[in-house]
């Protein structure tokens, strides 16, 4: 029985973890190595880390820090942020990163996706899509951590990424991110119905029922959690935690 995955999504700013609301209003969460260590001890499914400053400030990934994180992990660890060359990718895989995530660089140098998928295989490449409504309320793809509207249509872009060889789509609703109010079920549904590859839904999960909705109503293969795993509860303090095993075992995804 394959179970749907629950993935803590950790945001790196300088050398600290932060949590955001709609990619803004940064709050300090803690030290990345300690946090990853706690998740490892909880034997969770996998972890994904995004350096939210890297592309914005045209910085390379912080390889020293990533190396320390990878050493703490006996689970799949994915990384995104500032990857804009084959050389970056190679360094990350050598450090023990399982999957790399491309967002801004996939938009501005899409051939990099094809090249990376050819060398490292689709299973190692995540296509990350940030979606935000424009002034008319139409959902578009944004780059540079939500800073630039690329005006791309989300479904067309997801299909192009699949075609170029990504093995998964990581879909974030910037409008819902950090709000606790639930995921963008319509968008998840439209994209998961359009692509053959797994979709990780992110942005807005505040309760376990939100997770279930994304999986059962909208067809997500996995849900990434931010607030739910770094705060005790809404309007309460920082506490690194994870839904308990019984709840997770309800997430039966495929029973052959």
């Amino acid at each position: 029985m394959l179970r749907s995955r629950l993935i803590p999504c950790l945001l790196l700013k300088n050398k600290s973890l932060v949590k955001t609301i709609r990619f803004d209003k940064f709050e300090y969460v803690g030290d990345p190595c300690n946090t990853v260590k706690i998740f490892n001890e909880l034997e969770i499914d996998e972890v994904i880390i995004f350096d939210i400053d890297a592309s914005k400030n045209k910085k390379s990934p912080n390889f020293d820090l990533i190396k320390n994180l990878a050493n703490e992990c006996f689970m799949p660890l994915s990384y995104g942020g500032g990857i804009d060359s084959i050389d970056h990718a190679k360094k990350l895989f050598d450090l023990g990163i399982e999957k790399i995530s491309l967002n801004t660089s996939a938009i501005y140098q899409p051939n990099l996706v094809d090249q990376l998928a050819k060398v490292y295989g689709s299973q190692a490449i995540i296509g990350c899509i940030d979606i935000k409504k424009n002034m008319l309320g139409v959902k578009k793809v944004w780059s540079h951590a939500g800073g630039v509207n690329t005006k791309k249509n989300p479904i067309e872009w997801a299909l192009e990424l699949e075609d170029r060889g990504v093995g998964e789509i990581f879909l974030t609703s910037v409008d819902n991110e950090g709000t606790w109010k639930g995921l963008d079920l319509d968008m998840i549904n439209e994209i998961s119905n359009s692509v053959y590859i797994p979709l990780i839904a992110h942005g807005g999960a505040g309760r376990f029922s939100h997770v279930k909705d994304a999986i059962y109503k909208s067809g997500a293969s996995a849900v990434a959690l931010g607030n739910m795993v770094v705060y005790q509860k809404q309007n309460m303090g920082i506490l690194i935690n994870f839904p308990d095993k019984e709840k997770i075992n309800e997430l039966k995804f495929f029973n052959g």
Partner: protein
Amino acid sequence: MISIIDYGLGNLGSIKNMIEHIEEEVQIISDISLIKHASKFILPGVGAFDTAMKKIHKIDGLYETLNEQIVLKKKPLLGVCLGMQLLMDISEEGKEKGFGWITGKVKKFPKNKFLKVPHMGWNTVSFDKESSLTRGLDRKARFYFVHSYYVKPKDKKKSILSTSYSFNFVSAIQEENIFGVQFHPEKSHSFGMKILKNFSDF
């Protein structure tokens, strides 16, 4: 001492990390003279079947030396993920021949809207037969999988673990001194550690 074979493909760092964590000695090698003196091998691999075999053939003498060490000298080898698939004769993924140490082929998962490919995530196993690789393994063990192809041995009895993804496929295999696992033990917490510990004790 476990020797991880470095032919330029695969997540060597994380396998080495976990072996060090279970306090076994480990080295990453590609040099033929070192391979001749090694006692136990892990054949890693991510990516495409043909790319892997081509890279192996590119290192002068690697293919022949491994054949000699595994087939004639019967040294233990564990193939991980694509490394397991390379143990077979052929793959639907490409035209290159595998090592052919275990008779059978590598097939692609059928693609449809209900069956996302790659098969990616944590899945359980059923125990097909006793093996030193799975001795003492928790019956509820779960492992991390990422793959679009699966191994189909000619002799079903070679399977030690199988896993269901719309149908049952072989998730761990053994032919005497040769083992293969389709999942990633190095990414599977305490369950993967148990497999690597068993292999190191074999």
